[in-house]
């Protein structure tokens, strides 16, 4: 349940942002990352609709490689 998914920010509106991963768009709250400077194109780690940390593009890609494996295993 503590898993978090890295997503890329495509638009920011106050504490709300739209982000994208694997062609899926979601509305995500940036309320827990008020202290971070975030802009379009940045990657964030998303858990239950909230960004919990900013991550680098490389780390986002590494995590997705793992998720692809998990999803392929259909667990």
């Amino acid at each position, binding site marked *: *349940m*503590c898993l978090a998914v890295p997503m890329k920010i495509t638009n920011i509106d106050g504490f709300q942002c739209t982000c994208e991963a694997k062609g899926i768009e979601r509305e995500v709250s940036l309320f827990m990352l008020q*202290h971070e400077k975030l802009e379009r194109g940045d990657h964030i780690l998303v858990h239950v*609709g909230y960004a919990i*940390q900013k991550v680098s593009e490389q780390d986002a890609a590494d995590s997705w490689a793992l998720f692809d494996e998990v999803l392929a295993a259909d667990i």
Partner: protein
Amino acid sequence: MSHSAAERLKSLRALRVDRPVRIMNVCGGHERSISIAGLRAILPDNVELVPGPGCPVCICPEEDVYEAIQLALHEDITLVAFGDMLRVPVNSPKREPRSLEQAKADPARLVVFFAAGFETTTAPVAAMLAEGVPDNLLVLLSGRLTWPAVALLLDSGTPGFDALIAPGHVSTIMGPEEWEFVVDKHDIPAAVAGFTPESLLAAMYSVLRQLGENRHFLDNCYPEVVRPGGNLEARRQLDQVMNVVDANWRGIGIIPKSGFALREAYAAHDARERFRSYADESRKRVGEMPPGCDCAKVVLGKIYPNQCRLYGAACTPRKPIGPCMVSDEGACRIWWSAGYRDNEWEGRKKGSAVG
């Protein structure tokens, strides 16, 4: 397995572990990665990976689930709960939790958000309340802190593990420092890990090397996400909205200062305050599980899932008996999904693998 994971494995194998070592993880996400990557099979024979208390659904006390069900049955409310987060972005382009949208969409209807989870999941609930929610949104909170369960095991004198892999996203919120007591008080090596096989192998390498050199410390093997002090803003919001209180863990009992409760300032959004009559003291049956179910022992790492007599026999994901087979974070469910089919209960009589 990726190149860097293979390199990590090579250096780990080169360490030559000269005695049996049990490494506990306390995160369903870690256990899932370990099982899928098949790490148990490729580690040195005398290294055991023990899944510990890492599933918030498994330890959510029965009385909380009962209360949520009773509310849904008897009150004119909409009950909302967390789903399986890993699949959500792929299968359903919706935002979670949807409780806020639900409450806004129909202001005349009460929405009760049953929020069970560890720190990672409880912090967003605090953030949601701190930001402000409509009057018709209430929270039935069943939040827990992870470290007190590990402290309970360590204080018991028979923890059943020699090293700890600390949870990555709990530490993202709370800071890695939360796990320092494992080293400082109990002299057990610990490493915070992320969720890739590389990160997990790095953490395993770290604790094995610490044991070999007899130099124990808390290693952060997930520094790209886990920063010193954690997410300070998230911790501030948690503290603003919630108190830390004694809490009941299913099958385990009350663990001091291991749960979250809404502060008085947020009482108007507290489902427990609004629906006091549903809290049923008589359902607090500490230590009780479905007959034959060993979830409590599985959660505490005392046995492996397939050492429960019901594993794969009466209990499968299709017909689960205990919560560990229900939740995607439950060790029994993860092991079954990863293909472990042998029931070792019979073998256990001849000699236990886990202490």
